């Protein structure tokens, strides 16, 4: 295979990885907040359903979850899904999994807030949503940035798990070329790609943390 062809294929894979990463974050970060609210709900039914969902997401391999999302509709319900479903199966699998992890991070952050902040807000007349949006959330975001960074970095590497259902992202592409051409070069390229991607993301997260360091 020509170098330029190989590079082009790898670039396509890279793009797919970035796409999976971006979509997963965009969807799972907000979804996680709702999951966290459900996890802290006063309604015992909602709370337990969410608790069960989180324990499944954390207690089984992500690779298996991807396979269930991709093959499940056909093997369990006999549904035939359109061709493009493979990509969306990847996204659904990642979003469901990461929302569960983010939810637990949010919950830890929210529950670590001192009661006094809520009481001061209440005495000053803030209602519940004003209290959460103006007083609690900005402080929670600052507190949870380091664990969120951890998850985000893990996500970059986890995108390679999409190979389990044959989605051609970076890693799957590299593996296909490597076995077809009997060369390890694509793996080296993949390694460099993941490292550089992580380096950029870690830098961005560090910048966010610095941005939030104006208060303590």
């Amino acid at each position, binding site marked *: 295979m020509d170098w330029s062809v190989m590079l082009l294929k790898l670039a396509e894979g890279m793009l797919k990885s970035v796409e999976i990463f971006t979509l997963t974050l965009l969807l799972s970060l907000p979804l996680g907040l709702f999951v966290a609210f459900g996890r802290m709900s006063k309604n015992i039914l909602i709370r337990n359903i969410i608790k069960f969902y989180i324990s499944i997401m954390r207690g089984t391999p992500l690779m298996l979850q991807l396979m269930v999302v991709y093959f499940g509709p056909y093997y369990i319900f006999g549904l035939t899904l359109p061709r493009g479903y493979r990509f969306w199966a990847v996204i659904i699998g990642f979003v469901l999994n990461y929302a569960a992890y983010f939810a637990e991070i949010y919950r830890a952050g929210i529950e670590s807030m*001192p009661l*006094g*902040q809520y*009481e*001061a807000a*209440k*005495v*000053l*007349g*803030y209602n519940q949503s*004003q209290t959460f949006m*103006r*007083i609690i959330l*900005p*402080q929670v975001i*600052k507190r949870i940035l380091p664990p969120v960074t951890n998850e985000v970095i893990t996500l970059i590497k986890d995108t390679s798990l999409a190979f389990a259902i044959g989605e051609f992202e970076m890693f799957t592409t590299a593996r296909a070329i490597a076995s077809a051409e009997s060369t390890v070069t694509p793996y080296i390229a993949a390694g460099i790609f993941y490292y550089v991607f992580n380096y950029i993301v870690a830098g961005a997260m560090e910048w966010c943390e610095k941005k939030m360091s*104006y*208060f*303590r």
Partner: protein
Amino acid sequence: MKYLEIKNLRKSFGGLTVIKDISLTVEEGEVVAIIGPSGSGKSTLLRCATMLETMDSGELIYLGEHAVKTNAEGKAVYAPPKQLKKIQRYYSLVFQDFNLFPHFTVLKNVTDALITIQKMSKAEALAIGRELLQKMSLSDKEDAYPYQLSGGQQQRVSIARALALSPKVLFFDEPTSALDPELTGEILKVIRDLAAEQMTMVIVTHEMSFARDVADYIIFMDGGVIVEEGLPEQVINNPQNERTRAFLSRFER
């Protein structure tokens, strides 16, 4: 005019009764100090009065308006939310550990509620905020964040924050207990100045000499009841009750 009336307040946590039947009245312009040993229920009393805790039974009345009534079964019934919101504006509370919002500047701490909740124009709110900060000798700190201030300065910001809402009654929950002794004085001076301006205040405090100097009326609590109450000279200098005497003897006079 009676700014605050509490009648037959009872409050228990689980099986533990913390307040047994307390009644008190605070008149306009009056400064009432509540003293007593730890665990006497004085902070709980304040938290019930400011609706941070729900009372089991009794009445809570601000400026003649009922926030809480007691029904025939002897259970506390709170007014509808709209009414409570209105009543809530009659008072404010200064906390022992300030509870400033760490992500807001000093000026924003003081003005945010005016702008966000009372929908005051920004210019008007900032003017009020700056005036209050000047009063607290904190004009040069308006852009600072709470962590950059000393405890005494933080407490003065929280007093400014409470005053910004122009409450009729201002509560203080041990306002100097989290401060070093040398910072206590600046807070006591602020409260003294407010008293001179006829601000109606209810102060839970451990500062006996301060309570005697600044308060018009002193309430001594122990075991969830008012053991003794009256004019400062009478309660502090000439206590009638054995428990009051025992408590006060631990303080130098």
